């Protein structure tokens, strides 16, 4: 078969089948090692099982590694024998504080092209390691799930992300939120303290952005009530009412749901009530072309 055809063919072969093809004959063992593996939508690597490393490429899993130099060398050799390059749409990393693991992973993926590099980060050490991996993929997009609140200086030094999620019990200030909003495309932040001026700044920012953006926040119910009252919105506001450029689109008190619009920006409040305890309201600010789904049954 023509060489150009074989190289094209190898871009359509699953990783697991490349492993089998290595066993067919010398010529195909070489072809596997020296051809592009094509594109895979997703890959995942985790080192959270003690002393094990779990790598998923497409529909193929690689599991278990001892951190001895000999074994590491063997694994790197296998990865280098499977393809010369590979393209991954989204690669998610969940690597613990083990520096050997990070160093191994960096070597392992040195010939990867990755569209979006995603991280789940539980500690400062893991954040530092994630930044090392990011430095190897400067042309990729990034996403990050932060399960702790880093020092503000380090948080603000992160590169721009497609999506930054911060899951923490620590409260995030309004000022920090506005800075993060300017840096990252999509945000998912828990326990935010926000004032009406900064909330309106966020709404105007999202509305004016040509990119499709979504900002998901958890804000104390009383804080949201205070913001809405500052805009002139009240318990008696109904769909179609305008408060300057802010329009009430949908109100369903029984479902604790309210939709508002500001120019191109939709604002959704879930678990919202004008009175009650201090639970968190789910606030979504988005300029997605599609309006928030309105269940016709409500």
């Amino acid at each position: 078969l023509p060489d150009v055809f074989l190289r094209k063919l190898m871009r359509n072969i699953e990783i697991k089948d490349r492993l089998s093809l290595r066993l067919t004959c010398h010529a195909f063992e070489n072809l596997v090692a020296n051809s592009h593996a094509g594109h895979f939508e997703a890959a995942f690597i985790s080192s959270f099982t003690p002393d094990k490393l779990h790598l998923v490429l497409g529909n193929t899993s690689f599991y278990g590694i001892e951190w001895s130099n000999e074994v590491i060398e063997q694994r790197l050799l296998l990865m280098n024998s499977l393809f010369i390059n590979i393209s991954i749409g989204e690669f998610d990393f969940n690597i613990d504080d083990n520096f050997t693991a990070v160093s191994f992973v960096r070597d392992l993926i040195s010939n990867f092209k990755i569209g979006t590099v995603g991280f789940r980060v539980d500690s400062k050490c893991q954040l530092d390691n994630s930044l090392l991996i990011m430095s190897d993929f400067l042309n990729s997009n990034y996403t990050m799930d932060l399960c702790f609140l880093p020092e503000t200086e380090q948080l603000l030094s992160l590169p721009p992300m497609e999506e930054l999620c911060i899951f923490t019990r620590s409260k995030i200030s309004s000022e920090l939120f506005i800075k993060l909003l300017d840096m990252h495309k999509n945000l998912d932040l828990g326990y935010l303290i926000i004032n009406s001026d900064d909330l309106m700044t966020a709404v105007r920012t999202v509305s004016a952005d040509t990119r499709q953006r979504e900002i998901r926040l958890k804000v104390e119910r009383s804080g949201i009530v205070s913001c809405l009252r500052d805009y002139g919105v009240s318990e008696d506001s109904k769909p179609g009412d305008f408060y300057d450029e802010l329009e009430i689109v949908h109100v369903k008190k029984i479902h604790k749901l309210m939709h508002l619009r500001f120019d191109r920006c939709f604002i959704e409040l879930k678990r919202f009530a004008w009175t009650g305890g201090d639970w968190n309201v789910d606030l979504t600010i988005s300029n997605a072309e599609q309006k928030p789904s309105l269940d016709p049954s409500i």
Partner: protein
Amino acid sequence: RIYPLMRVTLTTSDGASVTVSRQLTKHSGFIEKAITDMAVDDNAVPLSAVAVDVDDATLKLVIEWLTEHRDDALPYPEKTDEERRADDIPAWDQAFVQKWDTKEDQQQTLYAVITAADKLDIKGLLDMTCKTLANKINGKTVEEMREILQLECDFTEEELAEIRKENAWCEN
């Protein structure tokens, strides 16, 4: 510009000749280059014969595929890595390949068409046959792969054992 009625005669490696519309041959980089290299008047009817290194039976299959795909966009859209997939073979093409499955020498026919697509530089046909062969290989055992690809195992037992040991990191 390709005139629909303009025709070109192709002579095959086994001495046959067939005259086809330029609407079909425009999809072949090789034939189009040959015509350009002749520097003949595009209005000459028929054009001088173009020799192709493909046998008559295979060329008939290629022409059948070209006839179905005569209106495909040119230049052939090269797909990015992200767009490339093997499960999007058009229904007509699947049936075209399935038809070979009734033949005893189905594998030889597929290989002959692949080689012809490569020689004639027909990117769409090369792409389709590539996906077809990939789909035949994926999920098969090593033995089945050797059979499909007509390969002889030239490994020693020790070499096979070594590769199996390397592959063992993969759990499934």
